[in-house]
């Protein structure tokens, strides 16, 4: 089936060429980072995790969100998602690959990364993160290959794939729970050490991921002959609505506990995010934008008229995705470090090399998605000529 990736029109190859260019720039900056060290990023002694780990955190959620199409279809026989599961699984593969790349570029000694396998440490959540992400990647590659291959041959997929697909459902939940556990077990970081972190991660993942899936499906529908119909998109929009509502609710829960308790080391982090701390207001406009976008999103999603009407549904999905990206991809990680355990407020902002490397990784993800979706559509004979 891979040979189908080699047949495409000008826009297909043009798009891949653009992505290749972005990847090349990212690679160039990574070589600089590999030789000089992580000092070329905006990170510091106090803020030791930043943009890379934040993107990883956000993308694990996107990867897990494939379960939102797989679960209804395979567990509850919801036929309408039949055409969408492969798109969800390919999105999961691309997202997991990007997660692994973001972790890799964040390592101080990346050549030693196999030490995590050579010296397994079950007490460390990072070990389990490696296990769960690798397992999820293998699961999705296997499932997508077997089901798409069966579709190409016009037969039903083999029976043994069904339990593997069912396994991928709790596994998807586990990858994002493990990622949340990385943060929520640290007594040193009161901003992260909340029981609600894992539920919040999952809720935001199940809002942002399906929102992205809706947007990508609409884009593919525009560029090709693929059309899953109105129902799957509407169902996904309902899923996004519920997930986003729960996500916003959980954020409000966190705000209440932190602010009402008035414990300084809890209040300080929220102050940094929404008001600024000791003159450091870098994230404040971003966080209020995220708040505004989430309000817009909820208004558009909760009202059936605007949710069903496609242009407003698109606006809502974009608002959901951007709002959650700001919250997880900019706000969440850095704020755990500001203020530091010693009460210091250190500013952080990604530098040019950091952004270039990150864009390169996003381009790799886009490349993987483009190629895989192209193959899937070619198998189904739905490429536009």
């Amino acid at each position, binding site marked *: 089936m891979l040979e189908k990736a080699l047949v495409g029109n000008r826009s297909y190859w043009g798009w891949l060429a653009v992505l290749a260019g972005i990847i090349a720039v990212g690679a160039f900056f990574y070589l600089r980072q590999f030789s000089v060290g992580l*000092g070329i990023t905006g990170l510091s002694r106090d803020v*030791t995790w930043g943009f890379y780990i934040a993107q990883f955190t956000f993308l694990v959620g996107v990867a897990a969100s494939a379960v939102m199409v797989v679960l209804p279809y395979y567990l509850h026989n919801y036929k309408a998602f039949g055409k969408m599961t492969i798109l969800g699984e390919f999105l999961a593969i691309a997202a997991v690959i990007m997660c692994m790349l973001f972790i890799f570029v964040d390592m*101080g000694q990346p050549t030693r990364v196999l030490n995590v396998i050579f010296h397994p440490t079950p007490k*460390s959540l*990072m070990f389990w993160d490696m296990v769960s992400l690798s397992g999820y990647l293998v699961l999705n590659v296997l499932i997508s290959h077997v089901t798409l291959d069966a579709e190409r041959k016009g037969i039903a997929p083999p029976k043994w794939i069904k339990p593997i697909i069912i396994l991928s459902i709790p596994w998807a939940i586990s990858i994002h729970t493990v990622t949340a556990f990385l943060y929520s077990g640290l007594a040193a970081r009161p901003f992260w050490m909340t029981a609600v972190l894992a539920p919040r991660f999952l809720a935001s993942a199940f809002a942002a991921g399906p929102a992205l899936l809706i947007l990508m499906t609409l884009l593919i529908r525009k560029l090709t002959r693929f059309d899953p119909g109105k129902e799957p998109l509407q169902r996904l929009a309902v899923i996004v609505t519920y997930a986003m509502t729960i996500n916003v609710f959980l954020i409000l829960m966190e705000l209440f506990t932190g602010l009402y308790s008035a414990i300084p080391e809890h209040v300080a982090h929220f102050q940094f995010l929404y008001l600024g701390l000791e003159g450091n207001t870098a994230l404040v406009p971003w966080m209020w934008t995220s708040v505004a976008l989430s309000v817009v999103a909820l208004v558009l999603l909760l009202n059936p008229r605007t949710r069903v009407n496609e242009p407003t549904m698109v606006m809502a999905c974009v608002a959901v995705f951007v709002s959650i990206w700001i919250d997880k991809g900019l706000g969440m990680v850095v704020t755990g*470090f500001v203020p530091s*355990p*010693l009460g210091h407020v250190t500013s952080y902002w990604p530098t040019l090399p950091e952004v270039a490397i990150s864009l390169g990784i996003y381009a790799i993800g886009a490349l993987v998605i483009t190629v895989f979706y192209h193959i899937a559509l070619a198998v189904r004979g739905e490429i536009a000529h």
Partner: protein
Amino acid sequence: MNQGRRSFLKTAALGALGAAATHALPAAAEGAKAAGGRRWAMLIDTRKCLEKKGCMKCAEACHEAHNVPALPNPRHEVKWIWKEGFRQAFPDQEAEYFDETLTTSKVLVFCNHCDRPPCVRVCPTQATWRRSDGIVMMDWHRCIGCRYCVAACPYGSRSFNWVDPRPHIAQLTPDYPTRTRGVVEKCTFCDERVPEGRPPACVEACEAKALMFGDLADPASEIRGVLRTRFAVRRRPGLGTHPEIFYLV
């Protein structure tokens, strides 16, 4: 079996399980002391230290003995031992009406070599671990530079090498290695001196005799004697890390 006997057996089984679990927990704790083993700890007399205002002999000795680099960019700072404001070092101590000579001064801080170190718990490669003598040790050959330990340390004791440290070491001590860029480092309680019976470099260099290094497992040690007679505080004990650096205030 009638219901009475059944429920009795159930309760008995659960009770036995519970008793076994509570029995196992202390032994499973990371702070288990080896029979006849040592437990290194340090005592800092903050008043004696304050007698020599501005003195940093301990830090200078440590950083020179261990090739700790002096980075010009404060964001990339690497430090094993330094002075921190009292309120920052002891955020749990409400210090408003206390003696200002202490609360507005700086106190010495470094790795607490906790009995239940959170940094050890999170390290994915065991590049940092707790030795049976209490020293929380570093293996710079194995560290992958993920900085999870830095995130987990509630005391800010750990530094990452953001760039190559070599150019920033003024005086290389050839007998001790440097580190390379991309690994995390911290105080290792002079693990190269202590087994030879020598005190840590900072203790040796302190002119105010404010630092005392000793074995907590030996009830007759000097440090145990002082702790019995004078009250000492530790940094953020409520987090359950069991830090083993004691501060006489």
